[in-house]
């Protein structure tokens, strides 16, 4: 019996909302091992216990189940409308099951859209066509609002930061964003960064970097070096888990680059809380049909 795409996407939400990715959990374990202050130990112990409870009980890791954001990579001539509808049905089902919070608000009236599904608008779906793809692959990112509020975009040069249009300027922007976030975005965080692009592409590419595993390096040696350096320097700020002070302020920094206009040089930082919920699956479809 082949499960429908809706079934598979609902299952993806259930796993993603309740199971912290292994690499993120490992990073928290390492942070716990490095911690010395009572507050940092208390917070990290609670986060690790919470991760186990959520996984065992299939309940959300964090009550802010975030904006469910699906990144679909699709073969040519894929029916994207059907995928979007399946994502909407999956979000509605996941909400009824308590895997997603009633987390969608009509911006002007303030009314709660209890289903978390709005045709064509929610959940958020991004599509990328891959001419070589044989099947649909989908990554789900659930990033909470507290961390989304701490994302930043800088336009270089920035005189106040002493940041020019070079990698040292980029470094200054990223450190500034990590500092501004303090404990507001649920540190220890993960930073997805985009250098270049227009404003919209910058935010999207920065967010997409959050899908990268913590252990990988940018394929560009200069960016890989910058990722390591900024991570090290941010962790010397002493902000620590929840902004209570400590050794681990960030778990990772992931930097991408995009072409830009001559007039623009944006550095966009997507701040993700420690509960960086991401998971990727390949959809199984009967005879290639959706």
């Amino acid at each position, binding site marked *: 019996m082949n499960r429908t795409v809706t079934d598979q996407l609902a299952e993806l939400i259930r796993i993603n909302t309740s199971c912290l990715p292994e690499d993120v959990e490992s990073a928290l374990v390492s942070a716990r091992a490095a911690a010395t202050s009572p507050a940092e130990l208390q917070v990290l112990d609670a*986060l690790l216990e919470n991760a186990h409870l959520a996984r065992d009980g299939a309940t959300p890791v964090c009550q802010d189940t975030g904006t469910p954001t699906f990144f679909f990579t699709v073969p040519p001539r894929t029916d994207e409308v059907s995928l979007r509808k399946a994502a909407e049905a999956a979000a509605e089902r996941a909400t009824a099951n308590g895997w*997603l*919070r009633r987390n969608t608000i009509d911006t002007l009236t303030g009314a709660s859209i209890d289903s978390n599904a709005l045709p064509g608008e929610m959940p958020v779906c991004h599509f990328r066509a891959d001419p070589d793809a044989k099947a649909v692959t989908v990554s789900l990112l659930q990033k909470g609002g507290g961390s989304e509020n701490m994302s930043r975009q800088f336009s270089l040069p920035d005189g106040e930061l002493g940041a020019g249009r070079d990698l040292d300027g980029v470094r200054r922007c990223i450190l500034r964003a990590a500092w501004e976030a303090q404990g507001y975005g649920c540190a220890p965080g993960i930073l997805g960064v985009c250098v270049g692009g227009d404003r919209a592409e910058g935010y999207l590419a920065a967010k997409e970097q959050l899908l990268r595993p913590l252990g990988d390096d940018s394929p560009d040696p200069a960016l890989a070096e910058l990722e390591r350096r900024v991570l090290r320097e941010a962790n010397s700020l*002493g*902000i620590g888990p929840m*902004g209570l002070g400590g050794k681990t302020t960030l778990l990772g920094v992931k930097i991408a680059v995009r072409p830009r206009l001559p007039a623009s040089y944006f550095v966009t930082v997507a701040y993700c*809380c420690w509960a960086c919920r991401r998971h990727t699956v390949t959809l199984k479809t009967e005879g290639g049909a959706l």
Partner: protein
Amino acid sequence: MIEVRYPFTETVVRNLHAGDAVRVSGRVCTGRDRFHKFLADGGECPVDLRDGALFHCGPVVVPEGGSWRIVAAGPTTSIREEPYEADAIARLGIRVIIGKGGMGANTLEACRRFGCVYLQAVGGAAALTARRIRRVAGVHFLETFGATEACWEWEVEGLEAVVGMDAHGGDLFAKVREASAARLEALGKEDA
């Protein structure tokens, strides 16, 4: 670990100091963005918060058997309520604020003046926090604000937190912010 239980008297609250680990029990009410805006616009608070605790929290709830199951709960970022909180403390007699990330100078001053503390719960530890909620005693504004922004009245037992801001001007977050600002400045002087 210091145990505090509703009703929270001024004496109990003034004996807490930034950095103390506490466990909160008894009645706790949630209120977040919509609630604070509603109060600021002149709305009447539907619950008696005198000597009470206000929890910045929007839970995951599922209706069950005529009541509600709290699936996940935890603190939301408190700084968004900074424009409103000092007035709320003065007007409603709130003694305990529970949230995450800390608040600003106006709230700190209201804590000092009226006898209130800000407790930092563990952000995102929603499965853990949900286990501390023993009973749903009531809910207000469910229709108008929705389940996430509604004011939930809960009985909690042993909710773990750290005193982030006390009634004597003590503020853990401000210390971290200042020290990290100095370090950031030093990093800015390092070579590219």
